[in-house]
């Protein structure tokens, strides 16, 4: 597509109803910029959104889009991409959508390695339902449904992705706009399943995982000697619960995405007016 697409072309005329200060603003802006800067066009982009505060993104962005049922955004995105591999497919959701109700699909989407981008706005809380513990809430986190603090350890999505054969695993922070945009761009450009977990703070219901908390704890992998091509280093990083790393934790640049691996055909929307050529051979097979 033409390279004169601006990131505002991906913006709809609907004003977001996210709380002022919500991390999702920054997450979305980075996604729009990344899409524009990688040469995509709204008419050739498909955005799938899950359910939750994050799921509203389909309304605020402009592209072909589906806002689906809770937890099932990844299968929808996979279906879109396999039906028409020419489309740029981006899936967005939250930590509840992706790591709780949809965690089964997450694992399998990672395994398949379909060439699409998955952005998770991880605020470690259920915001839309007004403040319950999420699968990524830190242990001991006090919420309406865990007044004495959650007693279970959080899900580790990056470790899950790595163990499931992830080929692009990154972490970003919504308020570090430039770095976040860069990471989403790299995920888009990755040939395979580009997974970006975004720290996207909830200013209303999460007073633990705040902007200040992240600013204080984040370590950018670019400032370390981390080699994203090293599975062993990635393993150590994703299992290190003392630090909040951002950057590309792991990337396998040589992986073969699903469409190529399976030899999936191009745009399947176009079909003939009658049975396809050769269909009669199918009948003959039954002799």
């Amino acid at each position, binding site marked *: 597509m033409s390279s004169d697409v601006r990131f505002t072309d991906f913006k*709809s*005329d*609907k004003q977001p109803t996210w709380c002022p200060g919500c991390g999702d603003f920054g997450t979305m802006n980075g996604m729009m910029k990344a899409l524009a800067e990688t040469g995509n066009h*709204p*008419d*050739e*982009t*498909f*955005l*799938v959104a899950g359910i939750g505060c994050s799921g509203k993104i*389909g*309304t605020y962005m*402009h*592209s*072909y*889009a*589906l*806002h*689906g*049922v809770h*937890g*099932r955004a990844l*299968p*929808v*995105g*996979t*279906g*879109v*991409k*396999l*039906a*028409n591999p*020419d*489309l740029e497919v981006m899936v967005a959701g939250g930590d509840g959508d992706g790591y709780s109700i949809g965690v*089964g*699909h997450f*694992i*399998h989407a990672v395994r398949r390695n379909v060439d699409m981008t998955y952005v998770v706005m991880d605020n470690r809380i259920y915001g839309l339902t007004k403040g319950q513990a999420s699968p990524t809430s830190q242990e001991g986190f006090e919420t309406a449904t865990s007044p004495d603090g959650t007693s279970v350890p959080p899900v580790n999505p990056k470790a899950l992705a790595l163990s499931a054969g992830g080929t692009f695993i990154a972490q970003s922070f919504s308020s570090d706009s430039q770095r976040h945009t860069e990471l989403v761009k790299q995920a888009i450009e990755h040939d395979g399943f580009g997974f970006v977990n975004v720290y996207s703070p909830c200013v209303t219901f999460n007073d633990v995982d705040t902007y200040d908390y992240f600013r204080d704890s984040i370590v950018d992998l670019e400032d370390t000697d981390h080699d994203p091509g090293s599975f062993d280093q990635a393993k150590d990083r994703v299992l290190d619960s003392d630090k909040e790393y951002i950057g590309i934790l792991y990337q396998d640049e040589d992986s073969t995405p699903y469409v190529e691996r*399976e*030899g*999936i*055909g*191009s*745009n*399947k*929307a176009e*079909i*003939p*007016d*009658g*049975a*396809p050529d*050769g*269909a*009669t051979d*199918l*009948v*003959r097979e*039954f*002799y």
Partner: protein
Amino acid sequence: MVLSEGAIRGNKTSGPAASGWGSRRLFVGRFETFLIMHEDLNWAIGGEAGDGIDSTGKIFARALSRAGRHVYTSKDFASRIRGGYTAYKVRTAIDPVESVVDRLDVLIALTERTIDENLDELHEGSVIIYDGEQTTMQDVEVPEGMIGLEVPLQGLGEEAGGAIMRNVVALGAACEVAAFPIENLDEALEKRFGDKGRAIVQNNKEAARLGQEYVRENYEYDFEYDLETTDNDYVLLNGDEAIGMGAIAAGCRFYAGYPITPATDIMEYLTGRIEEFGGAVVQAEDELAAINLALGAARAGARAMTGTSGPGIDLMSETFGLVATTETPLVIANVMRSGPSTGMPTKQGQEDLNMMLYGGHGEIPRFVIAPTTIAECFHKTIEAFNLAEKYQVPVYLTADLSMAVTERTYEPEEFDMDAVEIERGKVVDEEDVEAWLDEKGRFRAHAATEDGISPRAFPGTADGAHMTTGLEHDELGRRTEDEDVRVEQVDKRERKVETARERETFEPREFGDPDADTLVLTWGSNEGAIREAMTQLDGVSVRLLSVPYIHPRPDLTEAVEAAEDVLVVEANATGQFADLIEQDTLERVQRINKYTGVRFKADELAEAIRDAVAKTEVPQ
């Protein structure tokens, strides 16, 4: 009336006392009259799961089909007795057959249990082929009046090159019993084993001949069967395969599913074939994913399909409303089996009608189509795709186990690919998009049109970008809770059903005497058995309406009012289709239900219809 197994049995005649039929000795035929009364032969092979029963049965069915005989098959998967009993049954005749009867003429029994399982269907003069040299079969007592043919299946198999060929030895023996030219078997063996090399094919042919010769040399009985052959060329396929072939013919290019009996054959059929036509199959991680994968493909513009059985429909119900409210064309095959819960996974049932009609929260239109024969599985699949796209709705295409996983023969012309017409509905291209943009240039994907059908722009269409959502939405596909818009969108979605009623022909299939006092109504695979039952109803004239369109459906009020007796036949306990008919016509109907897990048989249906009519007759 409820048919229980007890009610449908009987007629077992005890044979004359005769000793030694189970052993190898000359037998003087005396049941000729019985045998030649029937123009059909009922044949079966049974044993343990893993004995190659299915594959062997299919070879025989294919041999008959290639020899120009009609074939209808059925399978016994499990049993009243615990264990892995399984059987493949073939009914064959010169004329088309599409039902089973309570009669078994030739049985290859690989286990003793196989004989026990089929005692009710075996009769005086039935031939039982078994391997008496097997330790497990040494004590087999062939029931009185039946003909036991002891054939060393395993030994002859070894002679031909391997014990694994014992089933083929038995097929050869069966050819001799049925006077069926063994050359017909060769072709089926080639089809089955061709990819394993010439030697394997040759060994199998040899094994069949050893079986044939063994019977010829050791038994001098004239079995009186004479399986005539014709020059006709038939195709042999099951309902799942017909659905799969119909999907490819209809331009389906994406299928996602999760393995489940008895729907898996659709996915297996498509895998390796749909790719040749530019399509793809994805084995999903579960049915939740399967329907969402298909939904995604459909949003991208592909003709997409998913398929499952009852338990999968439960899971897919989560997304069903989303498919319907986003007005996404999607075909969902529900190959029914017996429920509830895990129920009887390998048994017949038509219990999901209410689920398909009413499943899911909220109110949303859906189409439900139920093909009534294996050929109709093909035709209705094509129609389902056309309806789905024309009306932008999810379509349940529902078959049932009895026709999904068993085969029957057809003239190949029945599947005429040149007759296939693809109708995609209101798809707009880049030029048409203009007409559907609002004043701000936004595409009205859910425009509330007069006929309820909105324009559809595939992703990639310039200026067509739009969103849609499971939230109530406005015509742009954006969330709304505005009262007027809500009502407008609900009404426009419902209006599509009215439009379909005006534009389409949703007629039942009619058989029998149109002026008969007795009206039989049914849906799904029962049609064949009822049609045969009608030939056995001396003196009772019947009009049969077999209804493939469940929603929207034909108005049967006139037919119901005109009849004295209205009988609704279905394979469930409560009469879900009968309820619909009563609701539509405000008339009471009689119900003939069977929920044993076994398909209706022609003879038991004839009896049930006769009984039902007799009950309402006023004695003179």
